[in-house]
C-alpha cells in the first residue's frame, strides 16, 4: 500500500468523531462490545481521574464502553483500592490464568486482559496520563467502528503549542526517532507511516489480539506492529491524532533500557521473518556507567524480552471464547 494513500485515508483526528450519539448507534448496529483496559503499577495519583472521566463520559452519558478494567501488576500503593472505589473492575494480573504463572512487565497485563475482558474490541490506555480526556478512548475506538477493514488503531500526539512556519517536523519521542524509525526504514519502510509507533494507547479487534504473541516488556508495541503488518498489511492499521499527552518524562538511562528491550524484540522478529537469518544468540545484559568517588563503575541490567504466545494457544482461552472450535 502506498504510504501517502494510507496517510490520507487511515489517519484521523479525534475531533472528527465528536458525534457520540452516532458513534454509539453505529456500535449498537454492529453488536460490538468494547472493553477499556488500563494496565497499572503504582498509579494511585492518576488512576482515579482516568476512571471517573471514562466512566462518566463513555459509559454513563454515552454507552460506548461496556467495561472498564484495571489490570494491576501488584501495586504497593493504593492503586487497586482507588480504582475500585471509582467503579472500575480491578484484577491482579497474577490472579488471571494462574496456571501460566506470572511474569513482570506491562505486556503481561495487556496479554492477560485478552482472556479476562469480554470486549470484541479492547482499547488500552496507560495510567500515567495527566491530561486525561475521553478522546483517549473514543478517538481510537471510532475508526474500528466506522471502518470494518481496520483492525488496529494507534494513537499519536501532535499539537505544537506554537509554530510560526507552514512546515514543521512531526514525530515521536527520542526512542522512536533514534531507534525505531531508522529500523523500520531499513526493514519495514511502510511502517514508518505510523507517526508514533511506541505510543501506549491503541484499540485492537479481538481477532487480532488473540492471534499475536506478546513480548511482556519494552518490545510489545514494536512486535505488534511487525506482526500485524506481516499478517494483515498496512491497510489493517489506523492512527488517530489525540492532540497533546502530558505524562512523566523518562530519563535517558531509562530510554537506554527501553531501546535494549526493543532491539531484542526487533532482531528476533527479523530473524523469524528471515530478514536477518544470521542473528546470533543475543546477550541479555545492558551495561551503563556511572562515576563514584572519581571511579567509573558499570551497572548491569539484565533485560530479557520474554514473550507470551498468541492467546489462541492457551486452552483456557479457547474454551472461554471459542468453545465450539
Amino acid at each position, binding site marked *: 500500500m502506498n504510504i501517502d494513500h494510507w496517510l490520507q485515508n487511515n489517519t484521523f483526528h479525534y475531533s472528527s468523531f465528536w458525534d457520540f450519539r452516532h458513534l454509539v448507534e453505529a456500535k449498537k448496529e454492529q453488536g460490538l462490545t468494547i472493553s477499556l483496559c488500563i494496565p497499572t503499577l503504582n498509579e494511585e*495519583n492518576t488512576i482515579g481521574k482516568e476512571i471517573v472521566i471514562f466512566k462518566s463520559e463513555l459509559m*454513563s*452519558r454515552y454507552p460506548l464502553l461496556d467495561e472498564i478494567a484495571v489490570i494491576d501488576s501488584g501495586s504497593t500503593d493504593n492503586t487497586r483500592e*482507588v480504582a475500585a472505589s471509582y467503579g472500575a473492575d480491578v484484577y491482579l494480573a497474577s490472579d488471571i490464568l494462574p496456571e501460566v504463572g506470572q511474569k513482570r512487565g506491562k505486556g503481561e497485563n495487556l496479554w492477560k486482559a485478552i482472556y479476562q475482558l469480554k470486549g470484541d474490541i479492547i482499547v488500552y490506555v496507560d495510567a500515567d496520563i495527566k491530561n486525561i480526556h475521553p478522546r483517549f478512548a473514543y478517538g481510537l475506538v471510532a475508526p474500528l467502528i466506522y471502518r470494518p477493514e481496520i483492525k488496529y488503531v494507534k494513537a499519536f500526539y501532535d499539537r505544537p503549542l506554537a509554530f510560526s512556519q507552514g512546515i514543521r517536523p512531526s514525530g515521536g519521542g527520542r526512542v522512536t526517532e533514534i531507534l525505531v524509525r531508522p529500523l523500520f526504514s531499513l526493514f519495514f519502510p511502510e511502517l514508518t507511516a505510523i507517526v508514533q509507533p511506541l505510543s501506549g494507547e491503541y484499540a485492537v479487534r479481538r481477532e487480532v489480539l488473540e492471534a499475536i504473541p506478546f513480548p511482556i516488556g519494552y518490545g510489545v508495541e514494536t512486535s505488534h506492529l511487525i506482526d500485524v503488518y506481516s499478517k494483515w498489511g498496512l491497510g489493517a492499521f489506523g492512527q488517530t491524532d489525540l492532540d497533546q499527552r*502530558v505524562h512523566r518524562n523518562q530519563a535517558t538511562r531509562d530510554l537506554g533500557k527501553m531501546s535494549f528491550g526493543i532491539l531484542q524484540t526487533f532482531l528476533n522478529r527479523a530473524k523469524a521473518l528471515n530478514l536477518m537469518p544470521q542473528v546470533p544468540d543475543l546477550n541479555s545484559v545492558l551495561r551503563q556507567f556511572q562515576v563514584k568517588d572519581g571511579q567509573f563503575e558499570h551497572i548491569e541490567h539484565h533485560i530479557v524480552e520474554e514473550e507470551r504466545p498468541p492467546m489462541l494457544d492457551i486452552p483456557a482461552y479457547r474454551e472461554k471464547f471459542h468453545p465450539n472450535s
Partner: protein
Amino acid sequence: MKFKDIKAQLADYRAAAEGMRDILLANTVMIGEIPAPTFYEDQRIRFIQDRLSECGLQNCSADEMGNGFGILNGSTGERNLLLVAHADTVFSEKVDHTISLLANRIMGPGVGDNSLGCATLVSLPILLERLGIQLKSNLILMADARSLGRGNLEGLRFFLNNHKEPIAGAVCMEGVKLGRLSYSSIGMLRAEVNVRVPEMYDWTRFGASGAVITLNDVINKINRIPLPKRPKTSIVLGSIEGGNSFNNIATHSVLRFEIRSESAEVVHDILAEIRDRITQVELESSADVAFDVVSRREPGGIDFRHPLVRHARDILKALNVEPRVAPSTSELAELIRHQIPAVTLGLSNGRKHAEQIEEVDIDPLFDGIAQLLGLLVAMDEGLCDEH
C-alpha cells in the same frame, strides 16, 4: 408539596447524587482543568454551555459579559429561580491546572472555589431528570464571569441589571464548606495603594527612603486607626509587593487591603480616615501615593427568620449538618442589592494547602447536593416566600 415531604425526600436526593458520582467528579475535573482567571473565563464558560446544551436545556448562551446560561423550563414558568456559581478563579493560566482524584478527595487549584460549584450546576439537569423532578418555575442556571477581585461581580451585576423578568429567589453555590449559610452581605471595601518614586526624586533630601519605606509608613498609619468592636469591623492587609533586589532602592510598591464592617457608615468613616493618612504620607515623602478603590459592597440581606433561611437551616439539620452562618461579600451581595431573596450554600468540606492547592472531600458533597435540591424544591413550591 409540604416542607415535611421535602425533608422526607432528602435521603433519596442524596442517593441519586451519589449514584451520579462519576458525572459530578468528571465535570469537576474537566471544568477545573480549564484555566479561568477573572476576565479570561471564556473557554470554561463555553464548556459549561456545551454541557448544558447536551442536557437538552433551552437558551444555552453566553452574554456580552461572558456569563454562561442554560434555562430549565418549568411546567408553568410563572416564576424564575436563579442558581448561580462563579466560573472565574484566582489562578493564572500559567499555573498547572491538573486535578487529582484520590480515594475520597479531589485536589487541585480552584477545585473548591469554584469548580465544584460549576460542576454541580451542569450536573443538576441530569440529577433532576433521574429523580423525575420537574420544577414549576423556570430554573436559570448561571455560571457568572468577572466575579472575583477586580471583576467585582461585574458579570452578575450586568445580568441583574438587564434581565427583564423578575427573579423570585436565588441560590449561590460555593464548593466549600458544607453547612455554610450566608443570607446577608457585610459592608466591604477593597482598595490598592500604589507608591511610586518619581524619576526626578531628590534622594539627598531628608527622609528620602524609597517605595518600601513609604509603604511601610502607610501600613503603620492604617494600623493605628482605632476599630470599633460593635458593629464588628476589621481591616485585612492582604498583600504587599515592591522592589526587585537586595540592594536597589525600590521605586514602586503596592499594598492591597480590605475593610469589612457590619455598618456601611463605619466603612465610610474608615475610608475617609485612610485617605487622610495617605495624603499625609504622600506630602511628607514626596513620593506619588495613589489610592484606588477596587470594589465595594453595601451591607444588607434578608432576616435570619426569613422562610428561605429558616428552611435552609432546617434542611441542614435534617441532614445532620451544623449550619455555619456567616455574611458574604460575593454574588449574594449583588442579589441583595437587587432585593432578590437569596442565600449562599457550601457543597462539601475542604481545605487549602501550600501554593493554594485546594482539597475537597467527596462524600459530604452528596449531602451538599441533597440540601441544594431540597431548598430548590421548597423555593419552587413557594415555601420560601415571605408573606
